């Protein structure tokens, strides 16, 4: 791996967000003419690493060098100038501009101070051809293209900038199989042309086909770099695991619940290309986890259940009867009794400048009002009960929610929905960005609610939580349920392996012999 001098290297780079370390003393060498794969589970620091390389975020400490000379990038534009081009997971295309406009956006060809449309068209056609996507018309508007085509435009746009280092962050996640093979041909040609490629993917077979060398990240640190093919899938999974178990979970009930009819059930639930034929059921008293890598449809599934998505096909059954849930308002009605604890508490969960009281009573106003008038006394009693139940630490109920700590804010979000006494509780990664103490209280609360008869669907990107909290876990991959793990089957190894879509039998065998 060291036969050629690295084109780009990174030494001891760290980055913290608030108190959370995203990346800690990371080293990385990138060599021209090679494809370097980066592996790691959710939150291992991969995204931060490439954001630093691409000039999106500045590192707190550490050095970077390009061609042996120290390099710092103040902006994405500066990184582009130096020849580092990144294709991000979240697309960077401008929806209202045409494909050609987008491809040349960073550096449009000009003549007499105006954009030369002829030249622009030629550059765009050339770049699309290089990306193997000549079927895309350069004058089409980006917003009219399906996701997989947009991803190809994104690749063409990167190529039009003549990069020396091309970073692909999950660039194939939205592509069809036919497109993936086209992209692979392009990537291999670029490697032959002497580009350095950094390839971030969760798809092990893609890495096996493409990569020359691999680096594994865990907890913000690089734990290994090895030549591709020198380690088995199982060894790679081992490298990716290895965090200490620091959470305390309440004991799970042992009695089987299978006799009670399911409170919530879906049959072949599908939505656009993001959800495919999802069938599962949740009984009262059960906590069902949603696992898998970030963005495999877990969030969409929760939104579909909660009536936010339009045009879903398949059935949703409540208490065994098919229902149609047309809006969150319908989902929270007494008949259905559903609550969704959203992922982004700042925009979807709370009105930050408003008081704790107002935030808490929004979802349950009809419970404490008579003839449209809010009974302030009843409201106050209910809120006090909730604050006690959840142990929300606040100076009073009339201060702005924005003044509370992240953990307490999240408790307010949960309390807000509990005021409605829901029977079905959907949680979308509720512990993201909150402290360990609050997390533990949350786990206890979830179990208490389940014991009291709630049916809970719990999506988490933290595998420990799924293992510690859930009675069953559905692992999603590409919008479909890849595997269902029950009781003792829920292990980190099984979760990661099925999340990566690795053949389970093989990993299972290795686990037995290990």
């Amino acid at each position: 791996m060291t036969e050629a001098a690295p084109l780009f290297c990174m030494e001891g780079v760290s980055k913290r967000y608030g108190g959370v370390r995203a990346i800690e003393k990371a080293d990385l060498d990138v060599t021209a003419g090679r494809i370097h794969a980066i592996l790691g589970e959710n939150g291992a620091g991969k995204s931060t690493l490439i954001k630093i390389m691409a000039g999106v975020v500045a590192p707190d400490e550490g050095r970077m060098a390009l061609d042996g000379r120290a390099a710092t990038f103040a902006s994405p534009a500066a990184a582009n100038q130096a020849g580092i081009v990144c294709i991000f997971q979240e697309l960077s295309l401008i929806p209202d501009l045409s494909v050609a406009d987008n491809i040349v956006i960073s550096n449009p060809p000009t003549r007499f101070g105006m954009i030369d449309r002829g030249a622009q068209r030629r550059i765009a056609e050339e770049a699309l051809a290089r990306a193997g996507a000549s079927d895309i018309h350069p004058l089409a508007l980006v917003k009219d293209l399906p996701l997989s085509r947009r991803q190809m435009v994104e690749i063409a746009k990167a190529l039009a900038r003549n990069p020396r280092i091309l970073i692909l962050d999950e660039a194939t996640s939205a592509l069809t199989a036919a497109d993936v093979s086209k992209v692979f041909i392009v990537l291999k040609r670029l490697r032959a042309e002497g580009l350095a490629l950094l390839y971030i993917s969760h798809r092990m077979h893609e890495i096996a086909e493409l990569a020359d060398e691999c680096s594994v990240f865990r907890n913000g640190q690089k734990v290994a770099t090895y030549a591709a093919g020198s380690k088995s899938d199982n060894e790679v999974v081992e490298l990716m695991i290895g965090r200490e178990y620091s959470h305390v979970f309440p004991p799970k009930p042992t009695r089987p619940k299978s006799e009670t009819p399911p409170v919530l059930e879906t049959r072949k639930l599908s939505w656009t290309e993001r959800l495919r034929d999802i069938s599962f059921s949740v009984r009262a008293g059960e906590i069902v986890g949603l696992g898998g890598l970030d963005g495999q449809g877990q969030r969409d599934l929760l939104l579909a259940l909660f009536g936010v998505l339009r045009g879903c096909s398949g059935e949703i059954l409540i208490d065994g009867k098919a229902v149609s849930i047309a809006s969150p308002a319908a989902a929270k009605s007494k008949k259905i009794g559903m609550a969704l604890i959203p992922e982004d508490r700042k925009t979807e969960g709370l009105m930050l400048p408003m008081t704790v009281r107002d935030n808490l009573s929004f979802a349950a106003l009809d419970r404490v009002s008579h003839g449209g008038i809010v009974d302030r006394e009843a409201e106050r009693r209910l809120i006090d009960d909730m604050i006690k139940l959840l142990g929300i630490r606040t100076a009073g109920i009339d201060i702005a929610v924005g003044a509370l700590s992240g953990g307490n804010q999240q408790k307010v979000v949960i309390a807000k929905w509990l005021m409605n006494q829901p029977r079905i509780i959907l949680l979308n990664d509720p512990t993201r960005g909150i402290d360990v103490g609050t997390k533990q209280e949350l786990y206890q609360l979830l179990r208490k609610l389940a014991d009291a008869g709630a049916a809970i669907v719990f999506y988490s990107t933290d595998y420990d939580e799924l293992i510690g909290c859930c009675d069953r876990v559905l692992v999603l991959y590409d919008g479909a349920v890849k595997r269902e793990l029950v009781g003792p089957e829920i292990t980190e190894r099984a979760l990661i392996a099925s999340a990566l879509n690795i053949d389970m039998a093989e990993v299972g065998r290795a686990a037995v012999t290990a």
Partner: protein
Amino acid sequence: MKDWRFWLAEQRGTLLAVGIFVMMFIIYSSNHPAGFSPNVVQTAANKGVLLAFVAMAQALVVITAGIDLSVGMIFTLTNCLASWVVVGSPLQVAMGVIVVLGVGSLCGAINGAIVIYGRLQPIVATIATGAVYFGIALALRPTPGGGVDETLADAMTGRVFGVVPASLVVLAAVVAVVWVPFSRSVTGRAAYATGSSEAAAYMSGVPIRRAKMAAYTLSGLLASIGGLFLTFFTYTGDAAYASGNAYTLFSIAAVVLGGVSLFGGKGSAIGAIFGALAFRTIGDLLFVFDFDPLWQPLFQGVVLLLAVSLGAFGLFRVRNRLDWFG
């Protein structure tokens, strides 16, 4: 493949505005006692161009996903200023015109600077600056008065070769000199990109600040051309609060009618011009059909509502209800 189809799709909003205007104008002129005569066209043009300039000004800012609630006040301020300075010898008149346009651009640039560097929302920033600009206008003309070089004024509001209204010729020239270069430049492209998705524009290394600054400054310039023309028509300066506000609101209506998306990134100043002309023709239509002028606001409102509804059909295709909000 079929390039013209893509062009058509892109220009749909603009073409719709042109269509609405042409239709209305045909109905108007065919019912006018004098018919489609140079006189009728000239009167209509002179009434229309004022709003057309202000609407163009608004369109530039709206394209960047902003909104400028001070355009009407810049229009009023420059009218008052012109009634002081566009007088005297030809040289003084020329200097006066330059001063008026310069002040308009400066007003726009101040808006831009507050929005970009002060990071205030455009709606708040321009309400505040609009009040300031009106205050200055009032200081310049506590009561209506002043004057303007009548030779220039009559030339600008008359006809070229006895047929074409001079005001339309100036409007076309402004489009050619200001709008066309802007929309085809890197800065103009950046303005569209910023309006469509500021985050994506930033990630693509687009000059966001330069684009916004240019949009606001040119917006001020265009509003001041409008103010200049108002002076040419009325021969006076008048710090009229109601009129300034009406121009601001009508400019937003014209922009929407002209197919410029209030979410930014879509539409053109040409569309806004035709939106403005169509909006003005609505009022004239009532006149030729002998309606009581009292009905004019109601009728304009209904037409605007219908036009806006056309643009809202896209919402029926939304698959994720959260997209309705953002």
